[in-house]
């Protein structure tokens, strides 16, 4: 990518005054395709969208303010509720930042468990995306197959290790909550073996379905320049053909030991955003297999005192969450709770690109584009 090209700035994209011509459509906050309580105010000229302004905040719970009143281990609970489809990576990202500040060494077994659950979580999250995107496009069956069958299996696995199915609070500062139960690794291995076949099934059901490709190919294209300028990360950025992944660029945990590819697209249209996620599921399976081969019995929690204080200073830990670069910026004043915590929420930052992404496309494509960006409103509004 030529980084000297001038990106489109926000002011250029969305001029001060909304266009006077055209019809106003308010998509949401109660609409089947907004995946939560999101409202997109769209003006259309005929069939073409002339401006789109997402309106958020319906789910704002002031997580950053709440964090200032809680101790560090208590904040992990809050992070579960951000991206509720990928709570494991949220836990992990927060712990990463705190561990950086504490300077603790994580036991190897815990690192492997973290990768296994993190990648399982990625698969589960992409399964939800696949299902809901299918519904957006009008195919109902992929939802019940991906969401109701494979994701359930992953949730069952999570339930076994931590007792919860959605808000896990499993990854803790210094390791993980508990060791895996007896026979769990075998179950994961069985699941991974099955999952390879299921992904092929998705391909036949949706990915290469001619109607699906017709709806999504060459729709909502995004250039790498545009994506970088808007701060877009994760599969949305990789679909544009830009090879960027925190797991490779800024390896955390034991990802430097893993062998995996970063699937990238060519032109960043809806289909490639979808395809990148499907391919990522395969890469995740590869990583889980590697971890299962390498994992050894041992400690799962670092030796930490019961009550510990994070030293004065600041730390930033980020990782590749299913929706992009999820980071926690923590400022500590030495007290038991952080002085300030900021969440770099990938959904929030990806969603603002929608202002430019939708403009110029037909009304019928809006749903396809909105779905392909894959946002979780819990993370957008925090």
């Amino acid at each position: 990518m030529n980084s000297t090209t001038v990106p489109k700035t926000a002011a250029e994209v969305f001029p001060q005054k909304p266009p006077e011509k055209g019809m106003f459509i308010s998509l949401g906050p109660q609409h089947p395709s907004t995946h939560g309580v999101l409202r997109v105010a769209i003006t259309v000229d005929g069939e073409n969208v002339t401006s789109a302004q997402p309106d958020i905040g319906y789910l704002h719970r002031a997580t950053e303010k709440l964090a200032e009143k809680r101790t560090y281990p208590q904040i992990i609970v809050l992070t579960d509720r951000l991206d509720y489809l990928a709570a494991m990576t949220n836990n992990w990202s927060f712990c990463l930042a705190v561990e950086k500040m504490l300077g603790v060494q994580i036991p190897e077994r815990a690192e492997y468990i973290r990768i296994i659950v993190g990648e399982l979580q990625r698969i589960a999250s992409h399964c939800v995306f696949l299902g809901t995107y299918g519904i957006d496009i009008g195919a109902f069956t992929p939802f019940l197959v991906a969401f109701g069958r494979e994701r359930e299996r992953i949730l069952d696995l999570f339930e076994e290790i931590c007792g919860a199915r959605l808000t896990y609070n499993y990854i803790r500062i210094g390791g993980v909550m508990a060791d895996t139960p007896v026979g769990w690794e075998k179950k994961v291995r069985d699941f991974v073996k099955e999952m390879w076949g299921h992904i092929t099934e998705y391909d036949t059901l949706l990915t290469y379905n001619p109607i699906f490709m017709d709806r999504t190919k060459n729709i909502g294209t995004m250039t790498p320049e545009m994506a970088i300028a808007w701060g877009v990360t994760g599969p949305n950025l990789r679909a544009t053909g830009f090879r960027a992944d925190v797991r490779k660029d800024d390896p955390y945990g034991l990802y430097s030991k893993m062998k995996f590819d970063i699937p990238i697209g060519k032109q960043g249209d809806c289909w490639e955003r979808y395809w990148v996620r499907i391919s990522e599921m395969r890469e995740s399976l590869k990583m889980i297999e590697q971890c299962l081969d390498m994992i050894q019995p041992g400690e799962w929690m670092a030796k930490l005192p019961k009550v510990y204080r994070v030293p004065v200073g600041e730390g930033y830990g980020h990782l590749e969450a299913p929706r992009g670069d999820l980071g926690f910026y923590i400022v500590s004043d030495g007290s038991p709770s952080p002085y300030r915590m900021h969440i770099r929420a990938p959904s929030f930052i990806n969603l603002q690109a929608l202002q430019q992404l939708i403009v110029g496309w037909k009304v019928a494509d809006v749903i396809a584009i909105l779905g392909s960006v894959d946002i979780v409103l819990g993370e957008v509004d925090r």
Partner: protein
Amino acid sequence: MFELGPALSHLFQVMRSFATSHGVSPVLAILISKIIQTNIIILLVSLVPMLLVYAERKVSAFMQARLGPMNVGPWGIFQTLADGIKLMFKEDVVPSGADWWVHFMAPVVAVAPVFVCYAPVPFGQGLTPVDLNTGVLFILSVSGISTIGILLGGWGSGNKYSMLGGLRAAAQLVSFEIPRVLSVVPVLMWYGSMSLRTIALAQQGRWFNIIPKWFIFYPVIGQVAFIVFLISSVAETNRTPFDIPEAESELVAGFHTEFGGMKFALFFLAEYAYVFLASAMATALFLGGGDGFLLPNGIIPSWIWFLLKTFAIVFLFLWFRWTYPRLRVDRLMQFCWKFLMPWSFVNIALAGALVLVRMR
């Protein structure tokens, strides 16, 4: 085996003679028997959607790795009945921005033609309610009236999404009516009749004593006509992949967004009745009606054959719905005008040539 048609007509004859022998005027007796027959049809048309809704739920469930309704009755067979009762007792909500009269008329206009449309369908030997000479044309034209009901629903709800759904429905249904009618033309040309009963009867017989002489087995013209008819029928019944008038993810529920209770049930009833009607038409036109195959004649009565074939095609409808995503509006129109239409014209020309060859 048990043929329903002759038995029924015998029953009606007995009833009529019984009535006339007890001093009822013959005209009145005929009228009463006609009314009873009509009511049987209406009952059938009302029962078929219930069956289809159950079938749809079960078929979709098995396609989606789940079980579907299981609680009401064994294997949930009374689920649809329970739903129907629930819908009857629901409050009839009319939105304040709606036009009350239009909102009320919409489901009525949508559902009324369905009952009439079942009149010329040959359900089996001697089971054609009314053998109309223009049966095919009659069904195709009268079913078009339901579109008006959809338009009324879209306009009368006073809702942007309903309105868009109604507009989309109008554009789609008018467009797909044309290839649907054109796809039937080769059948009419070949058999020289528009009566569904005559067409179904004309398809009896075997080539080489094996292949049934159904129209679908006529090389090229049969298959092309059948496929075009099937696709445009799916579009006419607003089902996935052509369900853009009620596209859930785009238009909430399209034209029936603001309908609840019995009004919604009527729209639903119309949709499923049309699915069954289209399948029954396809059976009579392309699959030889009540003509059996493989087994020797008479082992299975013709009406069971007819229903079996019809349900096989209904299953195709369900299969499409739970497999395909939805087309985009402009692509839908392109598909209709640039693919289905030319092919049906080519097919008509081909059929004409074949008819000429046969006349030689």
